[in-house]
């Protein structure tokens, strides 16, 4: 039991220390109960064992009202006290009375994460040479209030930051959110904690807390690097059979000239592709709204656009999306 206190990770956030302190209180009470009850048990077992010299029955004690009242009231007081602490700790951990400095919209899907900071800036899992997704890395400024808004498009996940002693479920059809202030810089692990299917175990992410200047530099870099490549007048986009994904999340086109786009759906799931001005402002540049194709190829032209970042997505599965960059 002694090990447990040492192992309680009192992590890197203001809230986690609150939780850790409360844990230690409960741990101390637990230790007292454990030692008390097991101590009494051991003592009774040694002291009152039946001896050959015992004659007749031991005293037939049927009970005692005073004893019953005592050991009803004492645990009750303990429980009420504990509940009071729990209540105040809960209010402080869950408080949302200050506006956050940074809001991150977390989208969980099978089986990875996407972190949307707003303003067309998203962090997704990068892919390795074989096309396998890597563990996504999100960064937040240290010492500032961060709000995580959690959404899922199909099944329940849970956004778990073990070192912050915190998790909250990512429930389809609900907008869960929590605030956290991480006050020690560092790289932290995160993982999905609610069973979500085959690759549940692989749904990891990383969170790095760093100072404000570095955070802003990172956002700038990521925005610039997130979509890069040689602009081409003919673009191709495809969905592998049965998957809820595009093969690319970035299409780069030359400025000031029309572009030909060919989309191929490998079948198994209905998809379409709409190219729009931005995620918020959905003036359609390509594709027919409300017309998913079960499989096959669709070809069309995107009119000439000035240089800038645009957005494409699948109406059936908004988690399928990417950047259409004109340069």
């Amino acid at each position: 039991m002694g090990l447990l206190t040492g192992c309680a990770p009192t992590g890197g956030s203001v809230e986690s220390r609150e939780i850790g302190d409360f844990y230690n209180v409960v741990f101390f009470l637990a230790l007292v109960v454990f030692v008390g009850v097991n101590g009494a048990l051991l003592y009774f077992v040694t002291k009152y064992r039946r001896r050959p010299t015992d004659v007749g029955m031991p005293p037939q004690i049927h009970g005692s009202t005073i004893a019953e009242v005592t050991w009803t009231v004492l645990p009750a007081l303990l429980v009420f006290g504990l509940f009071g602490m729990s209540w105040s700790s809960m209010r402080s951990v869950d408080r949302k009375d200050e506006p956050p400095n940074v809001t991150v919209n977390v989208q969980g899907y099978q089986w990875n994460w996407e972190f949307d900071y707003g303003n067309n800036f998203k962090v997704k899992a990068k892919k390795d040479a074989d096309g396998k997704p890597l563990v996504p890395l999100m960064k937040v400024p240290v010492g500032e209030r961060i709000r995580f808004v959690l959404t899922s498009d199909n099944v329940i996940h849970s956004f778990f930051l073990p070192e912050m002693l915190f998790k909250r479920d990512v429930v389809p059809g609900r907008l869960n959110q929590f605030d956290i202030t991480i006050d020690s810089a560092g790289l932290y692990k995160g993982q999905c904690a609610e069973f979500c299917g085959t690759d549940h175990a692989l749904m990891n992410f990383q969170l790095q807390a760093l100072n404000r200047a570095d955070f802003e530099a990172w956002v700038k870099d990521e925005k610039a690097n997130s979509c890069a490549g040689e602009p081409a007048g003919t673009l191709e986009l495809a969905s592998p059979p049965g998957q809820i994904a595009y093969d690319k999340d970035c299409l780069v086109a030359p400025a000031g000239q029309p572009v030909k786009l060919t989309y191929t759906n490998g079948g198994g799931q209905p998809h379409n592709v709409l190219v729009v001005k931005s995620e918020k402002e959905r003036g359609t540049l390509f594709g027919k709204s409300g017309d998913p194709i079960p499989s096959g190829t669709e070809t069309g032209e995107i009119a000439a656009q000035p240089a800038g970042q645009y957005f494409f997505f699948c109406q059936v599965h908004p988690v399928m999306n990417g950047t259409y960059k004109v340069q």
Partner: protein
Amino acid sequence: MTTHAENVGSVSVKQPVEAKKRSAVLDYLTTTDHKKIGVMYLWFSFGMFLVGGLFALIVRTQLANPDGGFVDRDTYNQMFTMHGSIMLFLFIIPIWNGWGNYIVPLQIGALDMAFPRINALSFWMLPVGAVTILSGYFTKDGFAANGWTEYQPIASSHAQAQSPGSGTDLWIIGVLIITIASSLGAINFLVTIFKMRAPGMTMFRMPVFTWNIAVTSILALLAAPVLMSALSMAFIDRNYGGSFFDPNFGGDAILWQNLFWFYSHPAVYIMILPAFGLISEVLPVFSRKPLFGYKAFVFATMAIGALGFSVWAHHMFTTGAVLLGFFAFMTSLIAIPTGVKFFNWLATLWRGQLSFPPPMVFALGFLSMFLIGGINGMFTAQPPIDYALHDTYWVVAHIHYVLFGGSVFAVYSAFYFWFPKVTGRFLNERLGYIHFALTFLGFNLTFFPMHLLGLAGMPRRIAEYAQNPQWQGANVTATVGAFLIAISTLPFIYNVLRSMRYGAPAGSDPWEGNSLEWWTTSPPPVYNFASLPPIRSERPVLDMRLEAEARARLEAESAANAAPDPGSAPV
């Protein structure tokens, strides 16, 4: 100690004429005798314990290595799903039904259960349910694979790439069958206990085990319909285009959790209350004292049963969809009646004359292990701490300290305690101690390290943890422990098989028991009792024993003094 035999013998009830010697198999297949049905429950559910254990060994073998690799991830998901489903629905709940079936009519002095044929039906539905669940193996995608909780919408067919096969459908149907059986059984127990008690057996003279079975049955009766509804809804979602649980089609993902836990939290008490009852039989017998605070104990049982219906959402603290304060408060309240029970058990030992045959050793093991299950539950009952511990291995440790450290230790205690009644022979004592030592060691090796894993943040139900190789040490320890638990069943199985034939003869009352099952012969006759003693307290058999001793003493004295017979003064 000869009183019973004389008593039984003094009433000249003839053995019913054995019509024709039918084969034992046919006899068991067609029986409506509560004792035979009880024995079948025991064989069946212990068999299921072994099957569920095999699934657990596969899970533990996989987790000994951070990269997994023993089975693929889909198979792994099926393994822990089947482990949980079998252990809960087909082992713990039915094995207490088995002991309840065998013992309750004997404890209240009844001839049989109130509805013997429904009793047979509710037993025979269990193997049907078991076969239905396990037949998922033969479908294209194997067993159900979403955990024994089958959370929606992941277990609904709308969810992408999930549960496409029929394994989940078979799971739903199987659990539905088992739940119906459990409801039938609950009605049967309640009618038996309320209507068929022997003359003089008032409610407050009932043995505590019977009391606990009564409260358990009320819980099962009230909770089971909710699970049946939820299962039907899930089945409709999967097969008939319903969308109760899928928000993308207008349903509610949290609804399933509310319905499921509204059954499954009381179900935890369905699994543990009979264990409380058993412990409350064993401790007094081997302390030679009455249960301390009998009435307080009964009221505490009722309080736990009632509170058990108001705490289901403590399984959902991190969903953001429940009123945390209310459920945290109600959950903490359960600690009070549970504490009362613990103090009463300790006070029963206090100033007793304790002896330590295997049933007592397992009962004491129950006390110290279930205590940990209660304590680590107090951590997760606090929402802020639960934010850290929910869905981690801490919770796995908690459920196993409650259900293994609690229920299973009590199940073993029941075997050693009542085996002499069922067979007329003792289980071997030395093998019993070896069995206890191995079980105790294996159990703690397996489940204690899980607290540390939970604190370190290892989530449940992951097939590998390559990102966190530092978790391997504790996992390997747990795996070694799991194999030790598997080994620990061997001396027990050998003991049972051997002692059925060659065990030392036990007689009708081997432990100097208190309740009526010790009044009749071992094994009891088909008609249970040839005669019943007067029932003047909750310990009628003890009363008769004391009376006989007193009478013998008086007779000896009067013979010595050659004084006139003072008559039989009751004690």
